[in-house]
């Protein structure tokens, strides 16, 4: 498998590796995939309650280099966005940015799922803001 330079860069220098305290009120955690499938991503966001802006993001990934790169890129992209803007990120954007070959598309899908899962976890903790966001 030949990897694109960007995949190699994220693999060698993954951005935002680590964990946030999932018990904290302003943290949303997404855990997607399964060990039996060979890929598990944990993506966490820390959201400013008033603005809905994602101030910090962290990830840990068990998976191939493309899965690691996809989740690393996802944390970079969500930072600074509002949760609603972050929901706009599509796996196809990740595929394009990292030049992923067809067999690696599911790794990018997982990254999109991880963003969505983290946001819905945060929203579950903030029913009021969440509905205000979607209403506005």
């Amino acid at each position, binding site marked *: 498998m030949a990897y694109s330079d960007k995949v190699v860069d994220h693999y060698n220098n993954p951005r935002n*590796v680590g964990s946030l305290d999932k018990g904290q009120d302003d943290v949303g955690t997404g855990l997607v995939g399964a060990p039996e499938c060979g890929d598990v991503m944990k993506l966490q966001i820390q959201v400013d309650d008033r603005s809905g802006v994602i101030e910090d993001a962290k990830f840990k990934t068990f998976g191939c280099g493309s899965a690691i790169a996809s989740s690393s890129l996802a944390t970079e992209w969500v930072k600074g966005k509002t949760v609603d803007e972050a929901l706009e990120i599509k796996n196809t954007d990740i595929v394009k940015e990292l030049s992923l070959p067809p067999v690696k598309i599911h790794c990018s899908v997982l990254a999109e799922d991880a963003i969505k899962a983290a946001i819905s976890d945060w929203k579950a903790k903030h029913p009021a803001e969440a509905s205000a966001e979607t209403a506005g």
Partner: protein
Amino acid sequence: MAMSNRPIYMDNQATTPVDPRVLEAMLPYFGERFVNAASRNHQFGWDAEEAVDNARKQVAALINAHPKEIVFTSGATESDNLALKGVAEMYGQKGDHIITCVTEHKAIIDSAKHLEKQGVRVTFLPVERNGLIDLDDLERAITDKTILISIMTANNEVGVVQDIREIGRIARERGVLFHTDAVQAVGKIPFDVQAMNVDIASLSAHKMYGPKGVGALYVRRRNPRVLLTPIIDGGGHERGMRSGTLNVPGIVGFGRAAELSMNELEDESRRLGALRDRLLARLREKLDEIYINGDMERRIPGNLNISFAYVEGESLLMGIDDVAVSSGSACTSASLEPSYVLKALGVGEDLAHTSIRFGLGRFNTEDEVDYVADKVTGTVQRLRELSPLYEMVKEGIDLSTVNWTAD
């Protein structure tokens, strides 16, 4: 370190580099000695025939066979096909049942499946956790319709060596022909068709430092005399079992490779066993939760198959990109399915995804082993820092209780 700019080849169960001494033996046969070994009417043809006969002797000697029992083929894939299909067709009157095993190479499994479609009944014996078949299972599977038992000698992924002598004894006792895919064993461990009662055996040159695209099928000539229906028809070469102008340079190389393996087997297997143990010891020094796949005692000396829990295999390969090894992870395979061999051993899919096969060979050195062990250790440590699974386990979470979102 000087070697860091040259990739290290440690995938010798996939293929082996051609030994320079083998190449030297082959070269003249690409040039001035170009002639068809079947041209019996001139000196050139005799030379080529003599070269092939010499190679036949060399290959036969390695497995204690008679030269006339060696049928040259294009490789072990063809040999495996010829063994199964050739027996099924030749002995179809006698019976319609074949016994093989779930961890065989695809050349056997798919040949067997092909025969199933034509009405042959096939028993795929399971293996135990250590990768070996249960001989009682084998005995029970034999019926009066069984015409062939095909069990590989050494497995290409986990290196485990079946009890060929016992299987041969059982087959002989029950009057069933016994074929073994001996590709990974011949030249690596002692292999003797007489002592082991083997009737048919597949060999491949490129797994023993010879060229690719040439192999052989050993076909017993007496007690019992084995006959095979050819799968390639034509000019009747190789006692009618395999037509086609012989690949003279390839066969000459195969012969030389067999001769070298025979002369060096004892020293080489001792040396490779020591390198393998050194690799394992060095990995274990700094890494917890690494699991060996397959029996450690009954194994060819150059093989080590390890699962590095919580680190996906392809990402590990990416981190050791100056080392050539292979992985049973689904992510590295075109089918996105993890290794069926590991699955058959009962290795969970989670651990199958983390497996790496190290295949040590003739040209690996102690320095290379140390370099690889250290590089793997560093990469596993780095990737475990990145692994949500490792983190969860360290927090005391039992991964089997987590509600995963399967895709």
